[in-house]
């Protein structure tokens, strides 16, 4: 048991060290959310109003969710990378169980994704979106819950992919639908939203994550789609299922 925990810890630590040392990735990760918030938020917001909220305010939790989605799924790349460079073998033949290996990697990548999410929060402050420390700390656990399932999804996809190219292709295929159907960019409860879109978004775990983030960040100004506890329950179920699937995927990996 101790061995498993220590194995898990060391794999978690490795993901974080690698992430922090990779400056280009860190810097490029600043860029995309900034574009969305500044250009899209301002441009689109000129024609878009919600009662009691500016569009930028509305958009902000959505972009936090989007950042978590993109970075989490992208983390799957570490599996392919480790396989290409042979390091995966060292991990897989160790006496540590596949469940711990998966969890170690997953927690590590989630922590990385969380750091990215935190950076978006800093942008929010700069852009004048009212976020106090309390909302930030209340958002952290929700952000973490969102990343668990998504990172697991990314790791699972990557464990089936042979190359970087095929992973990249499949990733886009998953990323964009999840993003567009999550309510990150426009309210799903708005008038004129067709039923098929509303229904499709109900099958998207990120919808519940983004809604939960809005409840916490926007407070009373936001009328949630679901009560907070329902949102969190759905995200937790998604996490649990994806962790199960991911562990299975790692168990069959050679």
């Amino acid at each position, binding site marked *: 048991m*101790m*061995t498993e925990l*220590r*194995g898990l*810890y*060391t*794999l978690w*630590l*490795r993901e974080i*060290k*690698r992430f922090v*040392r*990779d400056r280009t990735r860190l810097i490029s990760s600043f860029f995309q959310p900034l574009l969305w918030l500044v250009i899209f938020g301002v441009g689109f917001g000129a024609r878009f109003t919600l009662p009691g909220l500016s569009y930028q305010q509305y958009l902000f939790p959505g972009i936090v969710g989007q950042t978590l989605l993109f970075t989490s799924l992208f983390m799957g790349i570490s599996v392919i990378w480790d396989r*290409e*460079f*042979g*390091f995966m*073998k*060292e*991990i*897989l*033949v*160790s*006496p*540590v169980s596949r469940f711990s290996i998966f969890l170690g990697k997953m927690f590590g990548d989630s922590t990385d994704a969380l750091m990215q999410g935190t950076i978006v929060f800093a942008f929010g402050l700069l852009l004048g979106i009212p976020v106090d420390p309390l909302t930030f700390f209340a958002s952290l656990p929700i952000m973490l819950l969102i990343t668990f399932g998504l990172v697991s999804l990314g790791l699972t996809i990557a464990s089936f992919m042979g190359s970087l190219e095929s992973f990249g292709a499949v990733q886009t295929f998953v990323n964009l639908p999840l993003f567009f159907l999550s309510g990150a960019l426009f309210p799903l409860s708005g008038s004129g939203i067709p039923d098929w879109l509303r229904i499709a978004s109900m099958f998207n775990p990120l919808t519940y994550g983004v809604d939960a983030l809005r409840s916490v960040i926007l407070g009373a100004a936001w009328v949630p789609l679901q009560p907070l506890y329902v949102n969190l329950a759905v995200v937790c179920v998604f996490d649990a299922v994806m962790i199960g699937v991911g562990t299975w995927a790692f168990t069959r990996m*050679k």
Partner: protein
Amino acid sequence: MLNREAEQMSHVIETHKLTKAFNSFRAVDALDITVEHREIFGLLGPNGAGKTTTISMLCTILRPTFGSAKVNGFDIVKEAHKVRKSIGIVFQDPSIDDRLTGRENLYMHANLYGVPASEQKERIAEILKLIELEDRADDLLRTYSGGMRRRLELGRGLIHYPKVLFLDEPTLGLDPQTRDHIWKYIRELKEAQDITVVLTTHYMDEADKLSDRIAIMDHGKIIVLDTPPSLKETLEGDVVMVKAANVEVLSELVGKWLGLEKKRVVDGVLEITVRNGKAVMPRIMELASQNNVYVESLLLREPNLEDVFLHYTGRTIREDSTRELYGMSAAQRRAIR
């Protein structure tokens, strides 16, 4: 019965008809070997002989299609976990994280193999000393040379005090000087630690210099297994080396008139394995002059492993059949050479 049990326990590795088939192709075919405590056991064979596949089964990475094996008394299928804890592995291809430092790689391994936290610092210092990487321990792996990386992998495989160390082509793709260096560590290891080493290689000199016993493997089967001196003795004789203007013609002549068939041409030199070299040499000279073949030099030498391999397989291990490292690891290793 008890006696038999005790005897089986004394072998560090023991295989029974160990077989791995990929579809219908048998990469390893009914392997029966035993490896003894504290020996260096060499598995020598050309590329594709099945060496890596054998090691992969013994390390519980691949499941045998048929047959069984025990490592340190543990069954490789039923007790895979215990096998894993008791062995160290240096893979054929690079397997270190080059974005971490040498020391970080070692700590990670210690944690993965459950070395108690209180012992880790001391053990890692000890290993770094052994592989002479103390002064580079805190540099990122990507700044290491190919030989240094290999040494780190070697040291890493030892951290958790394994009883058996598997080395799959430990010096593949390294320059001669670095190879000498690695050989030195392997020999020192055997002296200093209570450890058994299983080594695969397609380099004759490597198998010869390091192994206590050598199993020559080809097409998934062990062809012959013995100590290097005995292997050479089985050839019962000498190798005559003839450098001549037209070695191919001479080769045919000695076959036809002197009945010598164990021969090959290496770099324009005809090498013939014979029982009594001193008696045969004058007759070769005579034959050559009768047929107007100009002989530049004639030498006698002891048989080496290359001759042994030729004797048993009818082929030579060709260097150019060296399997290239795959993908990224190939680029990686080329870049550091």
